[in-house]
């Protein structure tokens, strides 16, 4: 059943107009990013306000690796680039994890915002990183696919992979431990949950997956600068998809990203001058009406099940 669904989803780009393929790409990318974010943010309650740091870091580390070391082998370069982007982000997360995961709540969120700004500035101002003049990524073409169809399918695979990882974590022992951390970290410690280890593991995993997604995103753009990958908007959207869909759930990021992308790109795409205004207003309404996200609406009804402080 789910395999049939996947094959149909994979075949979508060959049946619809290129514009809708891009909308599909964006929904998949957003859902996957939302899922990667929620490993720490939704499951453990540590909201990062700076996950764009890992999109940018992944994109630039893989981009530099591919352009400097993998000349003439675009496809292999891309494959290895995914690993490079993921590993560099994992290492960066491991370095900052110890100091910043001691911060709780809003302090952690703001610290991540800071990390993101610092990395963006470094990429922009240190010439080796080519952040200000930009980086042209090797064009990858495979199986004779059109680029948008190719990236759609790559993102589809990536989303499935991230989804499976998130599912395994949420339903495992570690998922229960993360939930305990989210609900009350002191009690979690008292019950023997290895809180420090779990938080660091999730932070690193979340960063690595976000980094790998950043690599795919960079390739789908073809040319990147600091401002095209280190986008604060990304950091915020990852939270919004989860809030909108249902924080801490697996379906939430899918619902949230689908609603947001369709709303901003399709429904309001023709009202460019006011579409952000309308989007903002709708978001406020949705969050007020469904504090536990769209998924919460099905469980608790309108204005019901308000999240506890």
């Amino acid at each position, binding site marked *: 059943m789910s395999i049939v669904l996947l094959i149909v989803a994979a075949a979508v780009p060959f049946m619809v107009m290129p514009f809708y393929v891009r909308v599909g790409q964006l929904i998949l990318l957003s859902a996957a990013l939302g899922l990667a974010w929620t490993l720490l943010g939704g499951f453990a309650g540590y909201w990062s306000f700076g996950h764009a740091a890992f999109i940018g870091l992944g994109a630039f580390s893989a981009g530099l690796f591919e352009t400097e070391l993998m000349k003439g082998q675009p496809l292999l370069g891309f494959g290895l680039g995914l690993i490079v982007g993921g590993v560099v982000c994992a290492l960066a997360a491991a370095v900052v994890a110890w100091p910043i995961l001691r911060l709780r709540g809003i302090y952690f969120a703001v610290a991540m915002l800071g990390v993101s700004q610092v990395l963006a500035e470094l990429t922009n101002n240190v010439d080796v990183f080519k952040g200000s003049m930009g980086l042209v990524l090797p064009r990858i073409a495979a199986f004779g696919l059109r680029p948008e169809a190719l990236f759609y399918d790559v993102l589809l695979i990536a989303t499935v992979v991230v989804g499976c990882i998130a599912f395994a974590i949420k339903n495992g*022992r570690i998922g*229960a*431990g993360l*939930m*305990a951390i989210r*609900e*009350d970290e*002191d*009690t*979690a*410690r*008292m*019950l*023997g*949950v*290895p*809180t*420090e280890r779990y938080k660091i593991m999730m932070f690193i995993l979340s960063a690595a997956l976000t980094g790998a997604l950043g690599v795919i995103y960079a390739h789908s753009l073809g040319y990147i600068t600091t401002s095209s990958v280190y986008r604060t908007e990304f950091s915020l959207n990852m939270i919004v998809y989860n809030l909108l869909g249902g924080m801490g759930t697996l379906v939430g990021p899918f619902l949230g990203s689908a609603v947001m992308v369709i709303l901003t790109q399709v429904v309001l795409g023709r009202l460019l001058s006011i579409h952000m205004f309308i989007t903002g207003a709708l978001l406020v309404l949705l969050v007020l009406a469904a504090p536990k996200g769209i998924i919460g609406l099905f469980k608790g009804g309108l204005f019901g099940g308000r999240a*506890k402080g």
Partner: protein
Amino acid sequence: MSTPILRLEHVTKRFRGLVATNDVSFAVPEGSICSLIGPNGAGKSTIFNLVTGYLAPSEGHIFFGKTRIDGTPTTQLARAGIARCFQIAKPFADLSVRENVRIGALFGRDGARDIAAVTDDALALTGLSDLAGRPAGDMTVGYLRRLELARAIAARPVLLLADEPCAGLNATETEDIVTILRLVRDRGVSVLLVEHDMQAVMRVSDQIFVLDAGALIAAGPPEAIAGDPRVIAAYLGTEAVE
């Protein structure tokens, strides 16, 4: 005599100038219920925080069985078999009663276990089986205390620290908690209790340790403590004794 399950040796904890516990030594025999009593500010909570690794003593040592544990991280102590119920019940409000208890079973003391069986057993022991599906956030104080106990029991402790499990409960609810504590003890779990409800303390304790202003002023079985002039003085003032 066998090694006590918990032993404090000359434990002093200072917060800058303030001495919260002053040269406190006592031992909890294995398989007993011991109570720590004393007026507010006597240092009872500090001792709990020291034993559970939230604080490290300024001086002195704490032994869990034969192992020295002062300064050991909380998580590690939980995995060694020390569980604690909080004074202000801290349930995971968004989760069901069963899920709350299950987290205790999933983590807690190291070793093989059947998660579902441990969970069901802790729910049954605390009389929460019928409420297992309810969200923990919707429960009354009396039931929250039981949940707090159930979660700690599911962690399969060797030593259970219960911080005022009867505070704010009526007589019937207090009776239920006392029964649960006895059942826990009968399974071989040692219990250290902090409690203000003296009736409950007198009935349930094998040993009582009395703290006043950070120092241990008396220790012994309930009968001895009840008549001890120093204890009466600490609670009611010296005039009451004279």
